[in-house]
């Protein structure tokens, strides 16, 4: 196989992989919506953090790794959607959204709607 056609084959494969990742991501989003609508709550915070604590480094250190990663990414961006944060954390949007909502339910971050988008932020 010539190098040009090999490159072309690799690009095609990457495009296919990208399409498959988007399909999986949409399915995860749907699953999370179904779960939320049936139980009213998706998952439970896995650590006891007293409410009203500020999200400083001492609170960060007490969080489980997956939530700490989201919290640090949000600290860096200030205000962001789950999509923005998923690019920082290299996680699928639906998973990132779930972690952010866990942080909201723990009272560590807040969210607000701007038009069709939901923005997460840390209150200072």
């Amino acid at each position, binding site marked *: 196989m010539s190098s040009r056609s090999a490159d072309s084959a690799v690009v095609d494969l990457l495009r296919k992989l990208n399409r498959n990742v988007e399909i999986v991501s949409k399915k995860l989003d749907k699953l999370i919506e179904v779960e939320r609508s049936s139980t009213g709550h998706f998952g439970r915070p896995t650590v006891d953090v007293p409410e009203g604590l*500020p999200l*400083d*480094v*001492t609170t960060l250190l007490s969080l489980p790794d997956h939530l700490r*990663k989201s919290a640090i990414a949000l*600290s860096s961006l*200030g205000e962001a959607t789950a999509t923005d944060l998923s690019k920082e954390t290299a996680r699928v949007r639906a998973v990132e959204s779930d972690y952010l909502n866990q942080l909201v339910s723990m009272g560590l971050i807040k969210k607000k709607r701007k038009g069709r988008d939901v923005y997460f932020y840390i209150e*200072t």
Partner: protein
Amino acid sequence: MLLLAKTLAFHSYKGGTGKTSLVVNLGALYAKQGANVCVLDYDFRAPSLNVLFKAKPDHWLNDYLEDNCSIIDTLVDESAKFNLRGKLWVGFSNPSLEALKNVMSKDRRWEVKALSRTLAGKKQIIEEKKIDYLIFDTSPGAQYSSINALAGADIVSLVMKADEFDLEGTKELSKGVYEALGRKSGVVLNKIPLEQIAAGGGAEKFGKTIEAEVGLPLIDMIPCMCELMAMGGKTIYTLEKPDHTFSRSIARISETLRNM
């Protein structure tokens, strides 16, 4: 550029382990080799970079954390002073007594903002100044500003002297902070008396003993050199004395961190 830049933080359990000398010499070496470097003095309780660079900046890092200026305003271009191939930007913290008292008075709500501003500021510096290496010099121990810097780092270099005080404290930091933050970490043993290395069975065995005790890989071991203590704050060895033992240690550290 953001993906290629590396953020390094130098931390220690105790003071006086030589972090500032390591940071300055490492930053200068990378800049001499052609990299764009930014060094930030995040030791707000005992600022010292301003002494070595004889700096009187228009804005301090303290001003940035108080939201009185942008982080770019705090950076001073020190490259021309040393005729470097790359750039060396330095952000200084305010050594005045008033600034030190101000730092001590901060509450947890302020620290939340400081963490955000540290992480956002680091990103802005890397993007706007096209930085290859951003290096934090931090306060020893579990200080908010230090852990904020560690939270923003890709690699944490823990600088220690290998006495019992340092060993026990470092073990605690390793478990409670470095592991918790999930950063790549390693130890730089500094100011180690040759007698201690010999009593430990030689450099390799001594190094492995410390690695096992602390639970972190050894980046490098630098022997104690009295002349460095006399010249502290006056000489950047990697620029002025590149063949010195200390400069060669810094060169090895620079390679190890480049490849981590």
